[in-house]
């Protein structure tokens, strides 16, 4: 497969979080009874007119700023015509040639779904435009029904540059875009609620030759499906090219049951959507001052978080990536990291112990009793040798469940280290007396022997002995 270069572009529809729909005042709300959030405007009754929801403009500008894009000072809406029952006007108000947002960048990194590391870089984003969502059709065999609650929900259509070369990179792009949208409060990107829907364009070619014919995979609403379908397409297209079969421009979809993409329709000619400027909406003119104002109010991006974590808290790029996947986690880490000497310890605790405890419990961090201060206290106890490193894993589960201080839990669980030389001496003497063989080995210069002896001391102390002090004492006594 390696002799072909894969070219992937993604078009992703993101539902913007707003109080009301984009062109009327109906609620933008998921899960309401069918056709309860509708009005003459979003049902396209005769005579109605659209009015742009300022909040939707705020959201798209924020998305533009957070993706390092150019915000258009002059943009306009257009009508895109096609007939389908879920589209009440039979045209969609969208943006054709003058979108709000152009020329952005989406950083990628971390691990792909394959488990391989992804080389961190930026993928170009061509544009984001604002448009309205359509209703939801349900087919019942003999008839169909349409729920127009979704019709008119603001959609941000983001179009990437064709700059990704693997399913892992596409996965990382999707992850990064979702992250930005969530950090900005622009969208929850809940795929089950249809808030994040992806179309993939993919072609293969030999390096140095023109791009191959692209195939579109439509309506992918799960990150895993995006990844699987790309890998399937790469394999399918490679086989076709190898066998000398011409690839036609077509639209396919992912069939999860069969784990393959299946043909929907060929696209021999470009669709004629008869775009033209929406006469009911004047062009939107933004001032540079306004944009600067927005910029100053812009929430911190995941990228800015990562940079802060790497520079200020000295964590690795990969750690920073993992810690910022979720904004609540990132905020938690940032607060906890400030309170300790070695933020890396906080990072390790969060990425390992805490992470596995949370996934076992099936909980999000914010759903637990753990506060950043608890983590600070916990790490400080360890930094001050009050508890051992291994005690952290024993104390943390309690802190998740109960509103207690780390110190209290350490005491409750009898995990406070014994730093008293008198007590330590007793255990060390006891162990030296009981293990002449190991003592002999130690004296012969076998380094492992000290570890064995220390283990015995820890056992005798039921984990409370301070390991560095124990080692020091053994060395002193036996030399």
């Amino acid at each position, binding site marked *: 497969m390696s002799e072909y270069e894969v070219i992937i572009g993604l078009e992703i529809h993101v539902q913007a979080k707003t109080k009301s729909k984009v062109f009327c005042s109906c609620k933008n709300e998921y899960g309401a009874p069918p056709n309860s959030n509708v009005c*003459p405007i979003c*049902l*396209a*009754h*005769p*005579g*109605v*007119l*659209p*009015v*742009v929801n300022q909040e939707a403009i705020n959201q798209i500008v924020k998305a533009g700023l957070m993706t390092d894009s150019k915000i258009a000072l002059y943009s306009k809406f257009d*009508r895109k*015509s096609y*007939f389908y*029952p879920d589209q*009440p*006007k*039979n*045209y969609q108000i969208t943006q054709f040639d003058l979108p709000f947002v152009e020329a952005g960048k989406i950083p990628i990194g971390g691990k792909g779904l394959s488990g391989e590391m992804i080389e961190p870089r930026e993928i170009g984003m061509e544009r984001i435009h604002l448009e309205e969502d359509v209703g939801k059709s349900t087919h019942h065999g003999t008839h169909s029904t*349409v729920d127009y609650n979704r019709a008119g929900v603001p959609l941000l259509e983001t179009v990437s540059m064709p700059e990704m070369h693997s399913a892992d990179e596409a996965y990382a792009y999707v992850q990064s875009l979702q992250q930005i949208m969530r950090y900005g409060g622009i969208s929850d990107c809940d795929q089950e609620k249809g808030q994040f829907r992806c179309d993939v364009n993919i072609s293969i070619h030999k390096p140095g030759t023109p791009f191959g014919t692209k195939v579109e995979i439509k309506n992918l609403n799960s990150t895993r499906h995006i990844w699987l379908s790309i890998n399937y397409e790469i394999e399918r297209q490679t086989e076709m090219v190898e066998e000398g079969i011409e690839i036609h421009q077509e639209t396919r979809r992912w069939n999860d049951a069969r784990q393959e993409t299946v043909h929907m329709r060929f696209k021999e000619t470009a669709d*004629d959507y*008869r*775009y*033209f400027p929406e*006469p*009911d*909406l*004047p062009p939107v003119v933004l001032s540079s001052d306004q944009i600067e104002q927005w910029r100053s109010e812009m929430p911190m991006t995941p990228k800015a978080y990562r940079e802060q974590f790497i520079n200020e808290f000295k964590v690795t790029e990969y750690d920073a990536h993992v810690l910022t996947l979720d904004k609540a986690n990132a905020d938690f880490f940032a607060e906890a990291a400030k309170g300790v000497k070695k933020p890396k310890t906080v990072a390790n605790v969060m990425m390992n112990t805490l992470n596995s405890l949370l996934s076992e419990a099936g909980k999000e961090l914010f759903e637990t009793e753990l506060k950043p201060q608890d983590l600070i206290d916990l790490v400080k106890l360890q930094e001050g040798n009050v508890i051992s490193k291994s005690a952290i894993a024993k104390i943390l589960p309690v802190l998740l469940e109960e509103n207690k201080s780390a110190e209290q839990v350490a005491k409750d669980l009898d995990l406070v280290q014994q730093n008293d030389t008198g007590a330590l001496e007793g255990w060390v003497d006891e162990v030296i007396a009981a293990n002449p063989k190991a003592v002999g080995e130690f004296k012969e210069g076998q380094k492992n022997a000290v570890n064995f002896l220390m283990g015995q001391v820890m056992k005798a102390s039921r984990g409370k002995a301070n390991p560095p002090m124990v080692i020091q004492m053994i060395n002193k006594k036996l030399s």
Partner: protein
Amino acid sequence: MSLIDLKLHEAADKLAAGEVTSRQLCEALLARVDAVEEKVGALVSINNERVLAAADASDARRASGSSLGRYDGLPITIKDNIVEEGEESKCASSIIDGLVNVYDSTVVRKLKEAGCVVFGRANMDEFAMGSTTETSQIKKTCNPHDLDCVPGGSSGGSAAGVASKEFLGALGSDTGGSIRQPASFCGIVGLKPTYGLVSRFGLVAFASSLDQIGPMSKDVRDSALILDIINGEDEKDSTALPGKITDFEASLEGFDIKGMKLGVPAEYFEVEGMEADVKASVQAAIAKLEAMGAEIVPVSLPHTKYAIATYYVIATAEACTNLARFEGVRYGNRYTETDDILEMYNETRSRGFGKEVQRRIMLGTYVLSSYEDHKYYHRAQKVRTLIRQDFEKAYEQCDLIVAPVAPETAFKSGESSEDPMKMYLADILTTSVNLAGTCGISVPCGQDSKGMPIGLQVMGPALGEKKLLQLAYAYEQNAAVELKEVEL
């Protein structure tokens, strides 16, 4: 003098003086409708009970000292493409049948807030597409001055009903001349306001960038009165202009025409099919204005000859999308003899829309299909800019422009409907004002040898309504044009 002869402003004075009640006015008009509607065909529908209930409510307000003001109790008719809650707005088509509106258009809301009685719905060309009201699928409207003749269109019902005294005043809509031309044909006053002065919310769209609601009335003062009520900003219409003007009627008096510069565009008198009577009558009106003290200056609107082509590209492009919502899915008539969605669409629309509407939908679809080639729509937009600039240059030399409304007077029914090109070309003198987004009014200035009315068109710059109405009013008062009495 019968109540049906009253002008709106006279009726308002009588209501205020307690000389007449809204119920008496409405009953007199309903009786007139009973008597002549069969001949004229101005109304698509009128709900007598609703009319009288609104009149009674108004009278009760007045009696209890809580009148909503000068306009409370005035009956005003609306064109069938204006939405009123609880009524159908069929747009003289059969395709929307059965949809009872669940909201009020902004103009109807304003009428109601002023206390006006919505006095029935006036006939029109289907979806305002036509210049004769003959494309109405609902009924035929005749010109009260000669029942064999068309009333003009598309607001033919509004014009005919005012002329036949079935109602005192009406709202029309003007996309390419649809208020001014029928006003001219029926010998009444019709004003197409500046684009955005009156909210379009609740006006069933034909061509969104050209449509504008405006008054149609017996005299200039009534048009000013209606415009006072219906104009103003609207948060539901992003193309509506900010502000609200309340003194169009109040500023009519005391205006001095002396020194006002009136532009006369030669192009408007040389169009194909210009009838000698029309030309002579309009020229006489101009001479009268000059005699009254106006200064006449020749102006040029050189791109007039492209107005029709430009208009039909833009209007049909917008229309084909505006009318796409009528397909039987959510409301209206649906063809049900098929399980195939495409066939359902095709049959519903082929059966529901009349020939002229279908022709314009196809034209619009065609001009937009080449959008990316910039063949039609982009070029039309560029020419539209040139036409707008023609007016801007002209208004540097004059205050207002005077010209005919249409090259001919009302003609016999059936004469133009078989020849769409002829019908389209007849809009040559009115479409430019819509393309420029400016204002224009038609005022009666005479009649031809057959006794059919002729209109003088006065055009003004954007938001030039005040001057426009003042001049039209001065002309009306001084010229005292006497049209042949309508006999039905």
